[in-house]
């Protein structure tokens, strides 16, 4: 790389104007602005230099515009406050005067000079050097225009739980096409399995199913169930996705929900919807209000479809409408979308990992989702919880908070919703079985949402649930009794208790397969496997990849309120893009010189956005995805990559200038 020298740079062609702001007394009290103007006027590239009280004011701005016109300036340096305050302001000023905005830069002689130093001569000297540094940058700045590209006005929502449903409806209602992809045969997610939701104790299905119905009927939503995203290519505004739609074997347009098929089906397997507490047939409907409103055949449970082993369900006297098609095939659907929202939800931590709590071994030690099914009127026990072992109604029940959460050995974080739903479980159970003894083993009570503290108090005071502060060390079942070993830390004593049923509040973990999906889309996942937001405060629903947004429990454990809020936020961000005619992108991106690139691929591994790919053996940057961080620029061992308006030459000359050159 050539060394930039004052003499060989050819400053004669440059016509830089330097405008030094007093900022009232803020700068002028410590920096001798007149002296700065005097010294900087001597710089070979400077043809105009002046000072003024408030450069950002209208008269100040006019001075700049006037100088640009009269002195035919090729670049402007405003020595004033921090660029984070007024860079945009001054760039608009120069643009109005007909100069490219990138030919305007600021030198920070306030926050990083006058406000932090006391000796006038030192501060003045530093101000001059700072300006010299910025002059070196601005004379080499290219005159750039924002990069613009067209977009597809369609959204893809991955995940048909409450988050995906809300996001899809918001975007569809705004008038845009949405493709909603769901892995299971029905949308609704875990919310469909819930009995009642806290703190209002609304019936979950009652508030959910109208939304599911809206999705089914919405002209702007294309619903793809039994489907998974297999590939995502492209960039914001222009994603090309491939979706694999698995066969249903039942035609939803023909199926009339008569249920004749389940009567003849010989196969019986545990029901996923009931969390294994009941059985279903190989042909089944997950729950009566499923959307699409249709039965489905489970190919792993069915005795055989190709060749047909049983075939009873398809017989004409069983399935009147002839909805069953054993030859249904998977399909690959390709779509072009502008934005993607990932709302893949959660799962419960596998209880096999917590063998000391015995949920995997003993019938009456169950998970919180299983308890929800027991409480649900459409559940396996008609809404009154009964012991899976002998179907007796438990009289003594224990809810175990933090069963695996906040535990270094299992899940270190807090799962957010357990304290409230355990209180809910206790409350609802007490309403059904008023003479029952209900215990809640907790470590801390986290009830942070609106009205949650009241709710927990209600569980304690009205329902008489006994809250015991202490970690449970072991649970097992023997002779029909569930034995709990714990500690009561408030009373400082050990507890050995026999109950009829124990319910574990297992940790919330990200849904299976999320890591794969995330890597396909080049979005980050955090240490715990949840989707990583771009910034927790500034960009809570955006991923690091422009155009891909996050919503719901996929991003972190949360309740339905926050999930819905986040889904609408993600939809709003998506609409920000979809409502544009063109996508505009800052042009200060990386550019690779193909003639120098030797195809070593180091840049590709360093780029955090996946903005670089190989084209005919040479690396190439996608301008729309590139965010201009410059990691590839420094990494390139051939020096083949240039960051527009922050080149090595600029940085080298800035170093020289601030060190005291020129």
């Amino acid at each position, binding site marked *: 790389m050539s060394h930039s020298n004052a003499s060989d740079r050819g400053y004669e062609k440059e016509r830089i104007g330097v405008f030094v702001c007093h900022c009232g007394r803020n700068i002028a009290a410590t920096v001798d602005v007149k002296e700065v103007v005097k010294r900087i006027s001597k710089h070979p590239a400077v043809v105009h230099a002046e000072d003024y009280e408030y450069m950002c004011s209208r008269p100040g701005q006019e001075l700049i515009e006037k100088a640009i016109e009269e002195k035919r300036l090729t670049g402007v340096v405003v020595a004033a406050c*921090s*660029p*984070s305050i007024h860079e945009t302001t001054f760039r608009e000023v120069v643009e109005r005067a007909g100069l490219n905005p990138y030919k305007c830069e600021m030198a*920070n002689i*306030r*926050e*990083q*000079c006058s*406000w*932090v*130093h*006391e*000796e006038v001569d*030192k*501060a003045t*000297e*530093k101000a001059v*050097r*700072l300006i010299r*540094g910025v002059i070196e940058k601005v004379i080499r700045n290219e005159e750039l225009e924002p990069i613009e590209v067209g977009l597809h006005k369609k959204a893809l929502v991955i995940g048909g739980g409450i988050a995906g449903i809300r996001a899809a409806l918001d975007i569809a209602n705004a008038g845009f096409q949405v493709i909603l992809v769901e892995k299971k045969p029905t949308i609704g997610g875990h919310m469909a399995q819930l009995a009642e939701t806290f703190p209002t104790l609304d019936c979950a299905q009652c508030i959910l199913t109208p939304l599911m119905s809206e999705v089914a009927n919405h002209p702007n939503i294309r619903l793809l169930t039994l489907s998974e995203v297999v590939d995502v290519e492209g960039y914001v505004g222009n994603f090309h996705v491939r979706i694999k739609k698995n066969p249903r074997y039942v035609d939803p347009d023909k199926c009339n929900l008569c249920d004749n098929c389940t009567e003849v089906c010989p196969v019986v397997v545990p029901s996923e919807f009931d969390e294994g507490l009941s059985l279903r047939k190989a042909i089944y409907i997950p729950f009566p209000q499923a959307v699409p409103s249709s039965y489905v055949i489970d190919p792993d449970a069915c005795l055989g479809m190709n060749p047909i082993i049983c075939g009873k369900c398809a017989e004409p006297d069983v399935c009147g409408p002839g909805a069953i098609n054993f030859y249904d095939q998977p399909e690959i659907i390709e779509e072009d979308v502008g934005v993607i929202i990932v709302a893949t939800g959660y799962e419960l931590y596998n209880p096999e990992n917590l063998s000391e709590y015995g949920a995997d071994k003993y019938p009456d030690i169950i998970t919180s989702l299983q308890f929800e099914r027991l409480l649900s009127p459409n559940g396996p026990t008609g809404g009154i919880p009964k012991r899976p072992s002998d179907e007796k109604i438990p009289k003594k029940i224990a809810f175990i908070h933090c069963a695996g959460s906040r535990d270094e050995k299992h899940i270190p974080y807090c799962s957010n919703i357990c304290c409230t739903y355990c209180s809910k479980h206790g409350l609802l159970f007490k309403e059904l079985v008023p003479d029952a003894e209900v215990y809640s083993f907790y470590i801390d009570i986290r009830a942070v949402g609106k009205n949650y503290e009241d709710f927990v108090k209600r569980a304690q005071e009205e329902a008489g649930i006994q809250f015991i502060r202490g970690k449970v060390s072991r649970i097992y079942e023997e002779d029909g009794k569930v034995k709990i070993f714990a500690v009561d830390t408030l009373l400082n004593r050990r507890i050995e208790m026999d109950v009829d049923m124990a319910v574990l509040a297992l940790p919330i973990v990200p849904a299976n397969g999320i890591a794969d999906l995330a890597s396909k889309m080049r979005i*980050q996942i955090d240490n715990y496997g949840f989707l*990583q937001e771009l*910034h927790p405060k500034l960009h809570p629903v955006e991923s*690091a990849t422009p155009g891909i947004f996050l919503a719901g429990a996929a991003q972190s454990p949360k309740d339905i309120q926050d999930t819905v809020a986040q889904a609408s936020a993600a939809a709003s961000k998506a609409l920000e893009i979809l409502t544009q005619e063109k996508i505009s992108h800052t042009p*200060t991106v990386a550019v690779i010189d193909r003639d120098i690139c030797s195809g070593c691929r180091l840049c590709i591994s*360093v780029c*955090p*956005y996946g903005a670089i790919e190989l084209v005919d053996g040479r690396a190439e940057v996608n301008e729309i995805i590139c*965010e*201009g*961080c*410059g*990691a590839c*620029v*420094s*990494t390139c061992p051939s020096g083949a990559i240039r*960051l527009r308006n*922050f080149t*090595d030459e600029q*940085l*080298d000359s*800035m*170093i*020289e200038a*601030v*060190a*005291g*050159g020129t």
Partner: protein
Amino acid sequence: MSGEYKPRIIAFLCRWCGYAGADMAGTSRLKYPPSIIPIRVPCTGRIDMEQVLKALKRSDGVLIAGCHTPGDCHYVRGNFQCFKRVTLLKKFLRQMGINPARVRLEWISATEGRKFARVVREFTKELEELGPLRGVE
């Protein structure tokens, strides 16, 4: 060291964290020696170690301020690139007889104005004690 010597520090500050932190020191009217002159960079991951060495030769110390690891980098992991590079560069510096303390990498967030001022004061003092950077002639 004679009273004439006043250490000079060239600083590379990332525009999202380090530079904003330095601005915060100014907004808070904290004071630190004028030994330091900053250059705003888009990300500490942009910095080529060649530039650090050029800056070092023209000064007595180089300060690099970026976003906190692991998760604060505006561009995801540029700060880690800088960290790895500076770690390796320091080995080389030591081998060439240069005190690696002259290249100082700090994580300073946009709210850490106090930290910025403190680091500048500390670094200046350290460089005063180390003396100017002298090579074999």
